[in-house]
């Protein structure tokens, strides 16, 4: 059933984000092209296109947050909940569906951001006579980089940390919304209150765990080991918080759901 | 044929009356297969259980009979149909005579009036 939910949830978020991505790519290309002429008259074009690029980036950032909040609260606690909660689907699948879709789109956004960087580069080099984009790439590849030892593990650890952090943030938002919905009115205010309470809870637990870090990070270990230890603790902590928030959502939705 | 239900009388007895009338008038011919309960219920806009109950009563009265696999049929028995006609005729006469008595007509008056009316419409 989770697969079926994702089949509808992923496009539902995409239909809002994909047009923005297209706009973002266009502004990136425009910005790149604008940098080509160093003419003082066209300088303002660079400023304008840079502003446009930033504006779309901000819009995407804001839209992503709105979507995370809205797709959850509207589908599972708002009007559409009258349909979603009568589907023969477990609450676990519903929450999982929302969290997976949101995480996925956040990472797509990151990929698109990288792509816009490339587009700026293409725009900046595509018609200029001295360096073409292809040559630029070829030069970049030919550069010999001295990769540090264990670079693969570093990358995996960082990636996992980022994923765990993103998932945790999403689950934080979901938990706050679900708790806030328990208040029969002023649910938005209650959700904000719940979010603050969650932040306080998290920092309190974090402070309690600090001594643990001190013990694990020893000076005789090399920097790689220290980094790995911190990364693993951070991943476990984020995962643990995510699980706690998930169960809060699940419990409230299974046992205390009151749609009004 | 239109179905029209009045308030205050059980729907199933109104269905019995209507079906009886249809059989007596030949709207459903002797031996004709009746539509299914569901179709009749949909046509009349009534609950299928109610239609079922009414048909069971018609069956008990012998106006319809069912064959296990093929459905329900209007009776072919002349005797039953004749008795039905007599019963209905009697019922209508009673209603008719009742009204005429209320406006002060005697039995003889009524017979006379009926004869005159029959001549008039001829």
């Amino acid at each position, binding site marked *: *059933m989770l697969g*079926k939910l994702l*089949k*509808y949830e992923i496009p*539902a978020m995409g*239909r809002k984000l994909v047009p923005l991505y297209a706009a973002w790519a266009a502004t990136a290309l425009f910005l790149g092209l604008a940098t080509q002429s160093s003419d003082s008259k066209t300088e303002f074009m660079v400023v304008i296109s840079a502003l446009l690029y930033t504006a779309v980036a901000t819009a995407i950032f804001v839209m992503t947050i709105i979507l995370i909040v809205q797709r959850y609260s509207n589908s599972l606690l708002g*009007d*559409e*909940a*009258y*349909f*979603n*909660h*009568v*589907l*023969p*689907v*477990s609450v676990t699948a519903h929450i999982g569906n929302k969290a997976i879709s949101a995480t996925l789109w956040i990472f797509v956004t990151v990929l698109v951001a990288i792509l816009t960087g490339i587009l700026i580069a293409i725009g900046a080099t595509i018609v200029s006579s001295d360096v073409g984009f292809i040559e630029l790439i070829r030069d970049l590849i030919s550069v010999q980089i001295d990769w540090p030892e264990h670079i693969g593990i570093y990358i995996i650890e960082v990636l996992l940390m980022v994923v765990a952090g993103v998932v945790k943030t999403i689950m934080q938002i979901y938990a706050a919304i679900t708790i806030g919905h328990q208040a*029969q009115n002023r649910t938005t205010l209650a959700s904000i209150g719940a979010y603050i309470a969650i932040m306080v809870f998290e920092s309190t637990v974090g402070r309690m765990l600090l001594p643990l870090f001190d013990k694990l990070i020893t000076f005789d270990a090399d920097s790689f080991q220290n980094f790995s230890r911190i990364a693993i603790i951070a991943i476990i902590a984020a995962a643990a918080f995510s699980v706690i928030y998930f169960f809060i959502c699940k419990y409230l939705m299974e*046992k*205390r*759901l*009151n*749609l*009004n | 044929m239109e179905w029209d*239900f009045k*308030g*205050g*009388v*059980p*729907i*199933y007895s109104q269905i019995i009356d209507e079906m009886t009338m249809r059989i007596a008038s030949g709207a459903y011919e002797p031996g004709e297969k009746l539509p299914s309960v*569901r179709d009749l*219920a*949909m046509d*009349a*806009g*009534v*609950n*299928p*259980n*109610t239609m079922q109950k009414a048909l069971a009563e018609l069956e008990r009265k012998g106006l319809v009979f069912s064959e296990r696999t093929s459905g329900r049929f209007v009776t072919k028995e002349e005797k039953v149909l004749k008795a039905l006609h007599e019963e209905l005729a009697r019922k209508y006469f009673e209603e008719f005579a009742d009204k005429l008595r209320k406006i002060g007509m005697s039995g003889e008056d009524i017979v006379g009036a009926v004869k005159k009316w029959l001549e008039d419409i001829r």
Partner: protein
Amino acid sequence: MARIEINHVTKQFGSLTALDSVALKLEKGQIVGLLGPNGSGKTTLIKILNGLLQPTAGNVTINGMEPGVGTKRVVAYLPDRNALPDYMTSSQLMDIYQDFFEDFDRQKAEAMVDDLGIDRSQTMKKMSKGTKEKLQLCLVMARQAEVYLLDEPIGGVDPATRDYILRTIISNYNEDAVVIISTHLIADVESVLDDVVFIKEGRVVLHKAADEIREEKGESVDKLFREVFKC
């Protein structure tokens, strides 16, 4: 075991008592009218049966199960509002129903949508309020469910559609299903009902066969309703 059992259900919203110890057993094979004026608790009761609201006291079971994935498989619910994503077309919504409900009969849904003149490729957003209601009803009635919970199915539609809807309910009827129709428009539905439940200020004040009411009281259910709920 009755198909639906409502065991002394009380529901409070703050200081307001929406349902007060409601007890009902509804057997399969019937069409039940849940009748009461606006605000009498009909919608609250239906939402509890769907697990969308939790009772303050008491419990409900469908096929012996409390509301959950097991009951949701066999319950077809028509809510009192539009609950479907409105950027989707009728056709896409049928896809969703087909994906999630094993008992959904796509051909039947398409036939109903066509009968009612709904454009299959139009998005819900562009439909009139009445058309949205009709579409939701088509999707719900195209299921071969064991329990139908219809909250005001004929509230906002024209008389021709109302007749079509009632005929659909009759044609969908089967011995294994129970249909609950909540409405305050009694005259329109009374001929299709087996049983009627009068609900007044959160309490069940009458639960009887519709024909029994007509026979015993010598008046229509609609007339009795007007007496019971006289303002």
